[in-house]
């Protein structure tokens, strides 16, 4: 049987993460200063962008034309550009890392529901990642209340007042989705309820599943495996619905006039492959540090296949969404991609997204050997993680910043800060439980795993 292993969160690792955090803070502050100083230039660009947006929608029908023009004009009476940029980046990073955390739990649940044996020695790593869920939830609520006016156009009450010049018929018709149980344009009760409910449910299931898994360490027997499988199955049903609705709420509603029926899948696919790459990256790094002795090339192969397969899956979803909109050519839908294709930095992020998240993982992980070797996984996983960070960047930023967005020290610094915090939380959670399950009924199967 497997030897007991305990991860120790060493001061050396803590120092490295602190340095990452420090560098992040430094870049972030530098980025803010730069963004504040270049405010005048961006103000000019803002006027231009309104023109662009108005031309863009000139050919569309009256209603959506009015709406999009209004949205672009929003830049005038919101927060200053640099502050909006901070809000936008905070929201983007929080969505991204919330996803990695929740995917930790989702991965564990999938393993139990599928009765998978191979993953028995590595399940503690995604489990530890799930520790980020409550933090992400609290951060999301705080950021939402601080930045709602700048992030979400639909929060402005003028839009729902037929007397107002800003009255927006489309959003008025959609308003029940946000404001149900409250008054239109007021506090979005339904929306906030969903946000709180999703994080509470996810965290609740996280604690339940974790409790079962850790109880198994102490007492053994198969009953914990069965109870975890039951919880996992229930969680997966809840997650199927909540992840989709969360994608509409937190990401798609940034562009409230636009909609895509694939969006729930799209956000999930992006989260899922990022989570898989993160799990793989932590596993190979722990292995390099001398932990996880029973993990061999066969287990790495399975993780590599996961990253490879779901990179292709993401591409499939991406393409399905893009092609339908491209081919149907309906202005209220194409405006989303035109915004992202016609203007830097979104345009280069748009193409980099495809290269980083499809071309590179597809070609680099194609052979069997590539999936079985630590060196290649260490190259591909960071590419996938960075690639999907850019993917989420392009989902969030253009809708918030219109044509004033950028990828600079501010965004990169904030990503470093979030990444350092996430790693700290995940690794300290990992150090508080046995690194490898002690009485997992499928451990023997996993030790003999051979593909």
């Amino acid at each position, binding site marked *: 049987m497997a030897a007991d292993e305990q991860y120790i969160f060493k001061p050396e690792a803590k120092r490295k993460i602190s340095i990452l955090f420090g560098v992040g803070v430094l870049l972030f502050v530098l980025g803010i200063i730069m963004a504040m100083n270049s405010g005048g230039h961006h103000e000019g660009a803002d006027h231009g962008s309104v023109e662009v947006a108005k031309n863009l929608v000139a050919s569309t029908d009256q209603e959506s034309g009015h709406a999009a023009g209004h949205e672009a004009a929003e830049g005038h009476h919101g927060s200053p550009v640099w502050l909006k940029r901070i809000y936008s980046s905070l929201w983007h990073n929080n969505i991204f890392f919330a996803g990695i955390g929740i995917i930790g739990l989702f991965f564990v649940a999938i393993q139990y529901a599928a009765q998978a044996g191979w993953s028995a020695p590595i399940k503690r790593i995604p489990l530890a990642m799930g520790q980020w869920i409550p933090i992400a939830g609290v951060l999301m609520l705080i950021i939402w209340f601080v930045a709602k006016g700048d992030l979400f156009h639909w929060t402005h009450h003028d839009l729902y007042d037929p007397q107002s010049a800003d009255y927006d018929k489309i959003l008025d018709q959609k308003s029940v989705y946000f404001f149900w149980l409250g008054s239109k344009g007021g506090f979005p009760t339904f929306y906030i309820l969903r946000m709180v409910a999703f994080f509470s449910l996810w965290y609740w299931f996280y604690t339940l599943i974790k409790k079962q898994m850790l109880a198994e360490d102490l007492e053994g027997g198969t009953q914990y495996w069965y109870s975890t499988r039951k919880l996992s199955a229930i969680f997966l049903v809840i997650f199927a619905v909540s992840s989709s609705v969360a994608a509409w709420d937190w990401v798609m509603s940034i562009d409230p006039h636009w909609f895509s029926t694939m969006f729930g899948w799209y956000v999930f696919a992006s989260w899922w492959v990022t989570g898989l790459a993160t799990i793989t990256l932590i596993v190979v790094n722990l292995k390099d540090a001398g932990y996880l002795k029973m993990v061999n090339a066969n287990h790495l192969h399975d993780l590599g296949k996961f990253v490879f397969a779901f990179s292709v899956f993401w591409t499939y979803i991406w*393409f399905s969404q*893009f*092609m339908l909109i*491209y*081919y149907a*050519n309906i202005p209220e839908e194409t405006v989303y991609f035109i915004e992202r294709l016609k203007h830097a930095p979104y345009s280069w992020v748009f193409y980099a997204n495809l290269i980083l998240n499809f071309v590179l993982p597809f070609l680099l992980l*194609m*052979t*069997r050997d590539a999936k079985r070797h630590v060196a290649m996984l260490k190259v591909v996983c960071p590419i996938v993680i960075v690639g999907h960070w850019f993917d989420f960047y392009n989902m969030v930023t253009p809708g918030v910043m219109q044509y004033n967005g950028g990828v600079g020290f501010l965004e990169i610094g904030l990503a470093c800060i979030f990444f350092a915090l996430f790693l700290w939380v995940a690794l300290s959670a990992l150090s508080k439980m046995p690194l490898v399950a002690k009485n997992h009924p499928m451990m023997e199967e996993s030790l003999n795993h*051979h593909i």
Partner: protein
Amino acid sequence: MSSTSENFLVGIFDDEDILLHGVEGIRGKGVKIHEVYTPFPVHGLDEALGYKRSRLPIAAFLFGLTGTSLALTMQIWMLGFDWPMIIGGKNFVSLPPFIPVTFELTVLLAALGMVATFFIVSDMKPYKTPRSYDIRSTDDKHVMAIDLAANKLSKEEIGQILKANGASEVNEKNF
């Protein structure tokens, strides 16, 4: 024993564990094994026989690449040059609508090419009568064929080695 025929010594094994150890022992004695036939897949047999990994994936990749380029060339030539058509107001040569066809042809050629390669490499062709070293390999026996021409040891020596390594019977088979 005529010189035109091929002479084989056939070892019959009752159990896959005995077979696996037998393969190691027999190869350890320097006997070259022609092929082993089992009624069901035996894990670790490929490694024990010292088979290298199949290069079929490389063939698949090349066939897939052929499919990709064929599909793109075909569509660009047809819709861009030979018979340009305006579809949905798009450019004649616009990549996104070409992708589904490209994907399908890539998969089709990779799959068909792989099957064809496998059949050719395995020497499986129509009207070919398969060789059966012992018909019981389709029922409950593991059958090991040893080509006597490929081995320096005599028939008797190899027969003894087979017996010593767990073969329940040793037969001769000529084709």
